[in-house]
């Protein structure tokens, strides 16, 4: 049996036998099933993954008719990171006309709502210009990023300093105060951009600072969808598991800490999100087959419960994509194909 060339989660190459491949696929799905209390992949799913990884071709794509819609996060930042010297408007034209983008996303280089708030009057006219020279739907995206609300970056005592001193109640109060301020900032910025004509909003990397971060995202989504009945809010998560940094917070009676994607989805739907972006983190020390089998297990369970479109996060370090700025085409294309086809996705 020919050996199989694949990679670890950090992108480094590895050669596996068919038996080793199968073992990693089984262990990956078992890990997700146990952690998330969801069904493991079926025998058909595992065989399909085996075939995808055993294919000798350097690049794979979905079967015709199975294509999905792509949405993005941090779009203009990618050009700046690569030091391609175009402004944000031109970068979106490049995405639309040269990169086959189904949707566009405008965002600020800080990519957090708090720093955007004082400069939103500069963001609005640029959004209006972007909308006048593009055809594809334009999102505005940023992160709740609750970390910016604690000292020294923000007004509230730093929970990471309070907790080691045993000041748990004070740390929780700090998180609760930060949620209220973050919600105000998100609603203010998103409302301004929507009133400038944005087609949709992306709250991205929701949960990066734990359960309080998620609560801010859900509350802001609820307020925005009540205030603007036509608004589309895409809620994109930060990780597969909501960290209980506060640990006592709940939304509509459901405790947030510890929720996996299929349960996160239910709250996103209740809040009024129109698109949900679940995440599964990549383990850089495990193989891509292990990571992909694990990620698809979480995402399949999420898709089966969804009433709204699911756009799985498959950027660097999530969705079995490698933790590297330069994704290798071999495993990236395999992950893209497998995730879309097995989960019956709506988008990425």
């Amino acid at each position, binding site marked *: 049996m020919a050996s199989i060339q694949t990679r670890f989660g950090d992108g480094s190459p590895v050669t596996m036998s068919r038996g080793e491949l199968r073992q990693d696929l089984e262990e990956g799905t078992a890990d997700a099933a146990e952690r998330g209390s969801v069904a493991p992949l079926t025998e058909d799913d595992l065989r399909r993954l085996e075939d995808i990884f055993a294919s000798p071709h350097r690049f794979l794509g979905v079967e015709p008719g199975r294509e999905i819609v792509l949405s993005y996060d941090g779009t203009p930042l990618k050009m700046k990171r690569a030091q391609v010297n175009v402004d944000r408007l031109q970068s979106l034209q490049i995405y639309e006309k040269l990169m086959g983008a189904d949707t566009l996303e405008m965002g600020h280089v800080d990519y957090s709502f708090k720093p955007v708030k004082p400069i939103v009057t500069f963001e609005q006219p640029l959004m209006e210009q972007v909308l006048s020279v593009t055809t594809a739907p334009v999102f505005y995206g940023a992160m709740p990023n609750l970390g910016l609300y604690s000292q020294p970056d923000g007004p509230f005592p730093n929970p990471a300093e309070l907790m080691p001193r045993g000041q748990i109640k004070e740390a929780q109060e700090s998180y609760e105060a930060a949620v209220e301020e973050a919600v105000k900032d998100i609603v203010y910025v998103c409302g301004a951009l929507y009133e400038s004509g944005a087609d949709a909003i992306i709250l991205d990397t929701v949960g990066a600072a734990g359960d309080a971060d998620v609560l801010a995202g859900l509350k802001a989504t609820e307020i925005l969808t009540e205030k603007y009945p036509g608004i589309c809010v895409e809620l994109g998560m930060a990780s597969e598991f909501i960290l209980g940094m506060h640990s006592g917070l709940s939304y509509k009676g459901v405790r947030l800490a510890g929720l996996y994607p299929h349960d996160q989805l239910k709250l996103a739907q209740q809040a009024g999100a129109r698109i949900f972006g679940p995440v599964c983190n990549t383990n850089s020390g495990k193989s891509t087959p292990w990571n992909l089998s694990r990620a698809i297990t979480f995402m399949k369970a999420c898709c089966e419960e969804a009433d709204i479109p699911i756009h799985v996060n*498959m950027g660097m370090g999530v969705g079995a994509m490698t933790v590297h700025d330069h994704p290798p085409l071999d495993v990236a294309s395999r992950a893209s194909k497998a995730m879309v086809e097995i989960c019956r996705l709506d988008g990425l």
Partner: protein
Amino acid sequence: MGMAITHAIASGMGGMRAAGDLVARMQIARGMKIDEAKAHVAGKLKCSVSDLTDPILMNEARDELGLGLLHPYGGSPKCMEAKFNIAELLEIDVNCVQRFRSHLSASNL
């Protein structure tokens, strides 16, 4: 960048090269799942669902219906003009189109 290009080629609908932006609009405007969104767009374009990612067929359809082209020519509907036509064809509200309209004086409508 490499990530976005990989997904676009492996799994994406092709954006304006085909009808990816139109299908995306149905998810945004109505929260439609992918199969329903594709069926709606295919119905409006009077084509099959499998045609939606064909750049040759979709270029012809977009040109005929004024939905914006990857390579627009002089006089062809572009950008905001195309979005007026997209909103009408798909029977959806497009936020910037509504706001554009609201900024015009009544005599210009």
